């Protein structure tokens, strides 16, 4: 239960980190909060030869609202977002702060980072779900320069993203939710990874079709449910919502009854929260 030998490098800037990753090669890995990587190293599930510590890079932990878009630096911690007055008081982003309560526990949230959670791409983690729900753009920097990846294109599957090994997530840009929002998750205990979770944005106006419903627990990565989005936009009852989620889950070929019930329950709960806000 101890990490294997490894070499350690401290990056002073994003370009320094990219240089280090390129020079050290395939067996090198970025380390940020360490809340996922260190336990994986202790289990020897991850055995990088080199670690590039990005936590000393100045300015990567900012949280800013400009032109209604919320930009969260990769090194912002879950707890910093939870307690950020900027996030809590932004009408279009309050859900992000509210959802942070579900991420592990305080001692995890004081160190775990937004960038780490996005890059780690755990299928049941809250950040990837929020990123897809809000249509966020993930900004990454690598040898080829800087690019913006829409969250929906970033997550491929369990622990897999389209990020290159030399790319570092520097920030995530969240457009505001245009309608009321809700989130619900089910885990065996508070703070555990969710078995199923759902995030909902109601349509921006009566008759608008821009509702969004994103769930985890139905596929290896957070997934939009198109039939359910249409049902939510149409103001569906709980029973009609249930049928639409079932139709979406059929489409996704989810056949575990327990998982289907959990996802459905979380969608109905999240919609209820959004409708009563």
């Amino acid at each position, binding site marked *: 239960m*101890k990490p294997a*030998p490894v070499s*350690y490098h401290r990056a002073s800037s994003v370009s320094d980190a990219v240089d280090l990753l390129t020079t050290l090669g395939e067996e090198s890995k970025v380390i940020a909060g360490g809340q996922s990587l*260190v336990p994986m190293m202790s289990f020897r599930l991850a055995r990088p030869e080199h670690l590039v510590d990005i936590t000393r890079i100045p300015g990567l932990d900012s949280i800013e609202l400009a032109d209604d878009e919320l930009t969260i630096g990769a090194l912002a911690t879950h*707890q910093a977002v939870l*307690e950020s007055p900027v996030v809590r008081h932004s009408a279009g982003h309050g859900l992000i702060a509210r959802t942070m309560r579900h991420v592990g526990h305080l001692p*995890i949230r004081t160190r775990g980072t937004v960038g780490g959670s996005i890059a780690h791409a755990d299928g049941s983690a809250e950040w990837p779900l929020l990123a897809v729900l809000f249509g966020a753009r993930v900004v990454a920097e690598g040898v080829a320069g800087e690019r913006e990846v829409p969250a929906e294109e970033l997550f491929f599957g369990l622990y897999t993203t389209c990020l290159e090994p030399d790319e570092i997530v520097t920030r995530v840009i969240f457009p505001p939710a245009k309608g009321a929002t809700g989130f619900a998750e089910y885990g065996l205990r*508070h703070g555990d990874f969710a078995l199923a979770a759902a995030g909902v944005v109601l349509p921006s106006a009566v008759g608008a079709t821009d509702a969004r419903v994103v769930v985890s627990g139905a596929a290896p990565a957070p997934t939009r449910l198109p039939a359910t989005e249409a049902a939510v936009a149409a103001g569906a009852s709980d029973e009609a919502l249930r049928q639409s989620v079932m139709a979406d889950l059929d489409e996704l070929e989810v056949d575990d009854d327990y998982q289907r019930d959990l996802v459905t329950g979380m969608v109905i709960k999240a919609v209820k929260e959004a409708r009563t806000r």
Partner: protein
Amino acid sequence: MSERHLIELQVNGEPHELLVEARETLVDVLRHRVGATGTHVACEHGICGACTVLIDGEPARSCLVLGVMADGHEIRTVESLADESGLNDLQEAFTACHSLQCGFCTPGMLMLAEGGIPHLEDTSREEVRELVSANLCRCTGYETIVDAVEQVAQQRRSEDPTVTEGASA
């Protein structure tokens, strides 16, 4: 052999210069190199919270932090709670409420509470339960730990009502 790095740690107010391996976790650095064995270690993968310490005042699992990454930071362990005049208020409350049996989880629980109390919004029992749920205890059934933390949280809050904007939205 893993490479070594010279780091500076402030542990309970005392500066330490230490030669550590890159792969060494902070809890091992504290226990084996600093000799501060008050901090316990059990699961070594972030589940139990026995190893909780404060890093720059914030509770953290010291088995999930590499010692080399704590370089230059201030660490507080359970050894910092008592002083010449005796146990601190949390330790007294744990004693009075019978919040420990075997005591294995206690250093972590105390440091979780010490660093977590300032983050509480309303010091309600529900909120304290959520805080305490971060760490595992195999003996007490938690109720007595929640009793002690709730009592101290409310006492400290009444003495210093400056509430940090935290917790529930």
